[in-house]
Every structure is written in C-alpha cells, then in structure tokens.
C-alpha cells in the first residue's frame, strides 16, 4: 500500500473508512485497478517506477458538501489531497498528483452546467464539465455561443483554466469571472462580485472590492474549486484567417511587429509568426522534414547564417523566409473590411510580400462540411487531437516544454539559438532534428508561447536523458529571461524556481499564505512549487 509521506497506516485506514462513510464505498478508490486511472498516461518517467508520481487513493465527491467533508477528514488525519476537475491534463501530468501518496479528489461527477446566460454570454459550471459536453449542451439547445475549447476536448473549462490553459479563443483564465471554492478549513468562498450577499454581478464583474483572489486558485493550492463563471463567446457571423509571407529574411522583424500591432489594436483575434525556410527540416510532431542540407548548414553556422544566404536559399527553394498569420471574426462585412485593411497595411509596409486569405467559415457551421481536423479551430471540441497524435506516430504520449518569450523577431531568433545550443551540447541529435527551428504563436495577446513536445519512449535510459535535457533547457532559458507558463507535474519546483526574483520573494509569500490558510498542509502540496511547512525543505 502506498502511503502519503508523514501519514501512518493507521491514520490512512481511518481516513479511508471515513471517506467511505461520507461518500459511499463505490466512490472511494484504493485498488490498483482503480488507481491506474489516476496515473499519468503520458508519464515522462516511463520505465522508472520509483520516480513516477502516484496517488494512494482517490475519492469522487458529487457535491460541495461532500467536498467539504473530504476536506474535514483530510484535516483530521493530515492527509494530502490533490483536486482534479476532468483530470485530463495530458502533457502536464494527467490526473496524477504533484506529491506521491496524495489522495486525488476527482470532481468528474460534479458535471452540471448550472446555467448558461445567452444575454451576458457566460456559463456557470461545475468542474467535471468537459469542453465536448459544454459545446454539445450549447448546440443541443441552439444557443449561439462558443466555448474557448482546448484541442483536447476531453478536458474542461475549469481544469484547463486552473492550469492557465488556452483554448481556440486564447487565454482561458482571462474568461474566468468568479470562482467558488472550498478552502482548506472547509469553508466555502466566492470570489469577486460573488462575495456580495444576494449579489447580481458575480457573472459579469470580476473584481468585486478589495483584492481579487481568484488568481490564488490556478496553479496553486489554496482551495478546491467547485464552481466557476466562465465567459463564452457569441458565435460570429464569419471567421477567416489570413497569412502574409515573404522570401526576404529581413522582413521577418517588421512583419512580426505589424501583425502584433494589428492585435494590440483589437483588429485581429489571434496571431502567429513562422519562418518556413528555417523550419523546413523540422520533424516535430505533425511536420515532415524536407531534408534540405543547406538549411541545416546555415542553422548550425556561427550567427546562424547571413540574411543574404537565407534570401538566396529562399529563392532557390521557393520556401518563404518569413510568414505571419492572423484570424479575424465578426459580421461578414466587417471581416471583409478588416481583411482589406490588413492587406493594404502589409502592402504598404512590404510591397513584395504575399497576402493570402484563408477559407471563410460562416456560422452556424454545418459540421458535415468541415473536416474533423478543423473542428477545434472553429470552436467545436472533439477527440481528434488524440487521433492526430496517433496518426503522427506518437505511441507513448509526450510532455510539453512551453516557454514564453516576447512576440518580437529578435527574441524568437535568440530563443532558437539558445535552445538549439543546449540540444546540440547535450548531444541529442534526434531532439535537435525534431526542434529544427520554431516560430511562435499567441494564445496570450502580448507574448508568444511555444509548445515543444518531448516524446516518451519505452527506453527508460532515453527518457531519463530527456528529463535532464528538459531541466537544462528550463534553466538556460531562465538565464535569458524566458520562463515556462506551465509545467508537467514533476517539474513544478524546477519552473517555480525560475521565478526567483529577490530571493524568491514570490514563493516565500505564497508559502506564508499557505501556512496561514492550510496549516495542516492538506491541499495539493507542491503544486505551483508551493509547499506547506510540513513538507518544506527549508
């Protein structure tokens, strides 16, 4: 039997007994079979059983009152809990806890769509509602609202936003207007305007009065979220993407600045930047290397190649040296006018660049006419992401290295040089080949984020080497001022360690609060790198 650290077998058994009395025997899980569902299906520690982070038990409450009872019992026996909503955080830890031996509080059964308000465009959700279910709920009722779904439609708005996840409409925590949570002492709190007794503004005004504490709940351990106000998006009349490309290497900088300015002005809704020629040899998941030796030679040369050499290669291969893209939506007339504006804007700035508009998608969508691999980008979550990975030969899952950097050409180039050097120094040619050269995209309006998937293999030695490389990448990027926005369960301390300004004042502040509100250290110890006193290595 796996026991949580610092908990005796007697206390553990007593807690399980009390959980059973509170929730019923069929909602308390201790057998190996049942607990296998709470292992990370994509564990980076494949073949390293002593390293894998596993739960000692799981409980599945169905109401706020049951969550409160679970918290009371955990306090009594000083048992660490770990809350998950849909528990499908694949690539960042799955349903597994941060601390081995924790009891997973699986909230999948709390899956009511409590309310959808069409006038104010929001949903009140319980944690177990998945993206697929919410979107289906809206379609079934002909409600013309879209949910900002992640590609993994099995996940849900609550869990996803609580890990600062992103959907096809961008930053999901930005859509959270208020939270209801069970605190470590069992009390129920509502944040923002939800704190007003009989208040009407919870779903529409975030801040309430005084500190906005909603931000204490994501990537942290200050409460178990039991309800969330999640803003939805009115279905647009039309959605249409566009891209601009050029063979000139030096166009990349002005192009990135221009696309970002359109974004800052609120003219376009999403943006991204790529250098297709530099990325021509990438064999990242979903990309087939074009095996152009000259690309490899230039990327590996000092200063990664002169602009004139890249220009010549672009002309010889027909592959652009710079490309940016954006998405526009709204009434069809406004989409047409916006695309005209963007076309003119780029034509003035870079007369030789090529502007192409993508397919216009008009709502309501007739899904039968849309290929399934495009559903997610149009607001229809599904399970295609898993099929996509399978089609691309990913057998054992992956975990994400996801650094943020500035949405500027200089930073994109510098980040690529830095990462490539770490990979080359580590003598991991396969990883370097897969990396190739990466651009950036923007679920967040003012920064780019990169998702590089470290594949998991059956070879434990290889996995162990990749873990070390991940560690080195995080630390080296930190030296340049780039940090991850999110990290797999086993890397919480590593990434939190990057946020170390002024002798880690932020972490110390969080831990001071943690000790005050969770003196027994029962809620998700270690999440976000925040450890309660009893587990802290001072």
């Amino acid at each position, binding site marked *: 039997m796996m026991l949580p650290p610092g908990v005796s077998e007697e206390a553990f058994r007593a807690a399980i007994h009390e959980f059973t009395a509170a929730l019923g025997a*069929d909602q308390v899980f201790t057998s*190996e*079979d049942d607990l*296998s*569902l709470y*292992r*990370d*299906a994509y*564990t980076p520690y*494949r073949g390293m059983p002593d390293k894998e982070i596993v739960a000692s038990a799981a409980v599945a409450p169905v109401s706020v009152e049951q969550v409160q009872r679970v918290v009371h019992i955990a306090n009594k026996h000083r048992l660490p809990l770990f809350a998950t909503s*849909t528990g*499908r955080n694949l690539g960042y830890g*799955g349903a597994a806890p941060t601390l081995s031996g924790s009891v997973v509080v699986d909230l*999948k059964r709390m*899956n009511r769509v409590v309310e959808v308000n069409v006038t104010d465009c929001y949903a009140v959700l319980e944690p*177990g509602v*998945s993206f*697929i*279910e919410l979107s*289906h709920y809206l379609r079934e009722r002909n409600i013309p609202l879209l949910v900002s779904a992640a590609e993994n*439609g*099995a996940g849900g708005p609550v869990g996803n936003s609580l890990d600062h996840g992103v959907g096809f409409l961008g930053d999901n925590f930005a859509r959270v207007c208020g939270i209801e949570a069970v605190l470590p002492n069992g009390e129920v709190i509502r944040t923002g305007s939800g704190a007003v007794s009989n208040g009407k503004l919870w779903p529409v005004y975030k801040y309430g009065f005084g500190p906005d504490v909603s931000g204490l709940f994501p990537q942290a351990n200050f409460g178990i979220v039991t309800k969330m106000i999640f803003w939805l998006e009115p279905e647009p009349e039309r959605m249409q993407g566009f891209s601009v490309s050029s063979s000139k290497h030096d166009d990349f900088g002005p192009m990135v600045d221009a696309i970002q300015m359109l974004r800052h002005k609120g003219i376009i809704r999403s943006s991204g930047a790529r250098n297709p020629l530099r990325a021509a040899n990438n064999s990242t998941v979903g990309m087939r290397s074009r095996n152009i030796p000259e690309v490899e030679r230039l990327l590996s040369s000092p200063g990664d190649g002169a602009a004139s050499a890249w220009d010549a290669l672009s002309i010889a291969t027909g592959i652009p040296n710079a490309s940016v893209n954006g998405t526009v939506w709204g009434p069809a007339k406004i989409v047409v006018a916006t695309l005209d504006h963007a076309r003119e804007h780029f034509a003035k700035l870079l007369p030789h660049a090529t502007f192409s508009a993508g397919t216009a998608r008009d709502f309501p969508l007739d899904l039968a006419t849309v290929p*399934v691999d495009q559903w997610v980008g149009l607001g229809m979550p*599904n*399970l*295609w*992401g*898993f*099929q996509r990975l*399978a*089609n691309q*030969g990913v*057998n*054992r899952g992956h975990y994400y290295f996801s650094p943020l950097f500035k949405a500027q050409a200089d930073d994109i180039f510098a980040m690529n040089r830095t990462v490539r050097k770490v990979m080359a120094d580590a003598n991991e040619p396969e990883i370097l080949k897969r990396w190739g050269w990466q651009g950036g995209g923007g679920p967040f309006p003012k920064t780019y984020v990169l998702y590089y998937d470290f594949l998991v293999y059956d070879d434990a030695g290889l996995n162990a080497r990749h873990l070390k490389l991940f560690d080195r990448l995080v630390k080296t990027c930190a030296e340049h001022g780039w940090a991850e926005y999110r990290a797999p369960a086993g890397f919480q301390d590593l990434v939190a360690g990057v946020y170390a300004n002024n002798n880690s004042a932020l972490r110390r502040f969080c831990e001071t609060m943690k000790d005050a509100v969770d003196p027994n250290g029962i809620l998700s110890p270690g999440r976000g790198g925040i450890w309660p006193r009893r587990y802290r290595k001072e």
Partner: protein
Amino acid sequence: MVTRRQVLQAAAGAGLIATAPHSIAQRNDSLPLHRVVFDGRHEPGVRFAAEAALWGAETSDTRGDIAALYVRELMTRWRKSAIAVAGLTPYSQLFGLRLMAETPRLRLVFLHELKSGDVYGPANVCRAPLSTDPAATARLLCGWPAHSATVARRESSILSAQDHPFTNDALVAWLMAPVSA
C-alpha cells in the same frame, strides 16, 4: 449511424458472409451492449460488425474517427447510464474514447489484437478465449456474460492508463463495460 441492414449488405457484397442474415437475440444473461463500433476501412472490422449485427447488435462505423462517433452517439447514451460498448478498431482510436468512458466509469475489460499466433498481449490485459477470427470475436463480445466484467476485474488487472501494449495501427477487438455494479 450505420444500420444493421447496411452492415450486412456491405459484408455480403464483399463476400464476407456466406449465409443469409438471421437475427439471434442476445442471451438474457449477456452484458447489455449499447453498440458495436468498427472501422469500416478495415475488412476484419466489417466482418466483425456483420457478425455482431447477426447477434442483434447496433453497429457504428468510425470511418477512422472515433471523435465524431463519441460526440454524436456515445456521449448522450452514456449520460443516461453506463452501458457497455464493444468494438474492433485500430488501437489508436481507443485512447480518447477510453478517457471519456471514465466519466461514466466504464473500463476496458477486454483488449485483444487480431493477428495470427497465440500471443495474447501482456499479462495485465484481461484474459478471455483467444480468437483471431473477427466473427468469433464478435460472437464472444456480443454474448459476453454479464457477470464477467466484474469477474474479469477481480481476476486480473485492467489495462492501466499507461499500458500501451500495441502500436497505433494494430487492429484490436475491445470491450468497455461498467465494472462497479
């Protein structure tokens, strides 16, 4: 949704079933089965579905995409109650479905790669009589005794989320069933 008649016609047209279809009701003590899922792009899948249809099962063709099938058919049914679903598909189509099946607490209680030889997969895959014949496998899954899911669970460890015993394109017969009853 593909009708029983369509599956039988397709299978008969392809010369996959020799005899005229005749419906055999599911045995009373067999596991209530919501439907049989197959990937019609693979001939054994069509044969499997034809046999299942003979046993009275509803069948659905994933055509390579279990996501759409889940959204259109399984999600609504599983919201009402946990009910078993059997299938013969490439292994890759199982992963996402298995995740969603966890919500109504269904488990993968049978998983078998359809290829010749008597290797049955790793020890922790639930055991059942071996067959490489899709028709025999369909018979087995449609007639799966109701109590077996629970028994299977007690006797052997169910495939854990981390066990990926097959390659993505391996054709596998599978059964997801509620096990907590």
